[in-house]
């Protein structure tokens, strides 16, 4: 008998995967040489599962800003901002994010996960309602559990379903906060924000958008989906992360809500954790500057995403509903998904394996994230490997079968 016996179902499912000789949840890189290349099991890998959208992890200006801060301010802050105080960089970063989004207030967190825990658990409370898109990220679900609001789930990207569920809450006191994501992390689809804004106005609710995967990716200025759909003034709160397009770690929240600063003394995931190290703050500030001054990175990213998405679709793979830098291929069954994932790895392509219940509709996914750092040749190499492996496992037809199916 072990204390952990309650997790037996997960333990045995994980063991069954490992018994096939693959360990998708414990990949160990021997080297990461650039945003798009690494070494695994002695073999060179194309990295296609990093969320490193703009490829800034190895940007020289980010590295030098970070090392200068490291030398000047040391390795860590060793405490939370309310107890140990803030460094100049924390204020500078918050001012820069607020300015970038054109908002009055910004607050940073030590991770994006904590930003969602903090914001969801404090914006709404007892007697209020939280309306979560069904495909919301785990951090949003966990944030909803940390707070005391009533949590209602609506069908993914479905404004009519959202309206119906808000109507059921009519007459009950309390505020309602709708939660959606810029780009969903599993299938890469975007939220219909314009329609959500209509529902929000009609029902007198508030709207929060998590731009974790869309900051630096969508919109003319890289502010994300709300900018791309021209609804920024109707989005009450935006949360996001520094760990993807900005190449570091950390989370943030921006808003024009009156009295915002009270969050600093009520938001526990902000209050009771050590603040971001100065070196991380410095590279993030520089990366945010690059997002604003180098739109060509975004254009290259989108071109790469199209090359991969259209390429996979043409080969006959079942991809997500929209083309974005997250490109997911559906595989009918978990065992098959593990085998395909491992074969792709053996052939030099690293991407993420996502298994139910972490995926929408319990469909196993081979999840890629494209970077501006990928070359067209790398994407083509990935497509060639996908074609070979997909045919071998019967996920797609061979060129000959495709030709005869057409005739």
């Amino acid at each position: 008998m072990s204390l952990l016996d309650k997790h037996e179902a997960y333990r045995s499912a994980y063991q069954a995967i490992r018994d096939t000789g693959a360990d998708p949840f414990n990949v160990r890189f021997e080297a990461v040489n650039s945003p798009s290349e690494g070494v695994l099991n002695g073999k060179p890998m194309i990295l296609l599962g990093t969320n490193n959208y703009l490829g800034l992890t190895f940007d020289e200006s980010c590295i030098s800003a970070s090392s200068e801060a490291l030398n000047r301010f040391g390795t860590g802050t060793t405490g939370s901002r309310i107890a140990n105080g803030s460094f100049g960089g924390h204020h500078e970063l918050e001012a820069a994010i607020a300015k970038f989004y054109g908002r009055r207030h910004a607050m940073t967190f030590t991770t994006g996960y904590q930003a969602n825990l903090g914001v969801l658990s404090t914006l709404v409370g007892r007697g209020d309602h939280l309306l979560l898109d069904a495909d919301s990220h785990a951090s949003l679900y966990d944030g909803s559990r940390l707070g005391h609001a009533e949590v209602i789930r609506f069908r993914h990207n479905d404004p009519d379903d959202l309206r119906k569920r808000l109507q059921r809450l009519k007459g009950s006191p309390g505020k309602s906060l709708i939660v959606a994501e810029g780009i969903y992390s599993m299938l890469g689809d975007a939220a219909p924000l314009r329609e959500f804004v209509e529902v929000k106005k009609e029902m007198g609710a508030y709207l929060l958008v998590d731009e974790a995967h869309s900051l630096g990716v969508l919109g003319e200025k890289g502010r994300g989906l709300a900018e791309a759909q021209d609804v920024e003034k109707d989005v009450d709160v935006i949360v996001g992360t520094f760990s993807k397009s900005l190449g570091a770690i950390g989370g943030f929240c921006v808003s024009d809500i009156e009295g915002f600063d009270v969050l600093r003394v009520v938001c526990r995931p902000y209050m009771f954790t050590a603040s971001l190290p100065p070196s991380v703050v410095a590279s993030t500030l520089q990366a945010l500057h690059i997002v604003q001054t180098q739109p060509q990175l975004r254009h290259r990213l989108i071109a790469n995403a199209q090359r991969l998405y259209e390429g996979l679709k043409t080969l006959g793979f079942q991809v997500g509903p929209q083309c974005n830098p997250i490109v997911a291929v559906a595989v009918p069954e978990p065992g098959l998904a593990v085998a395909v994932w491992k074969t792709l790895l053996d052939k030099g392509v690293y991407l993420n394996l996502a298994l139910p219940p972490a995926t929408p509709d319990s469909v196993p996914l081979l999840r890629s994230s494209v970077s501006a750092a990928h070359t067209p040749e790398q994407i083509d190499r990935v497509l060639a490997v996908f074609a070979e492996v997909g045919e071998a496992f019967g996920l797609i037809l061979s060129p000959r079968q495709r030709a005869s199916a057409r005739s």
Partner: protein
Amino acid sequence: MGVLQMDSVTDLTVRQIGRTASQVMQKTVEVTAASNIGRDLGIDSLTLMNIVMELEDTFELSIPLDRLADVETVGDLAALINDLRVRA
């Protein structure tokens, strides 16, 4: 309501949960009030939330996810639904 009537209301709700679970899981699921949702029926957290979303539409009410923390059996879920229906 008398004890007998209360029982039959619970019975009807349990039967509806069985129908909805079968529909969401795309296979026949035999349930009783005593069925443990995770252990006996093999329903994971996501599937349970999907079943609850369908039940909200069937019964035209809101079933807040935070109320599911105490739900272990089909009977618990039926009791929660009946409680919410009385309040609605």
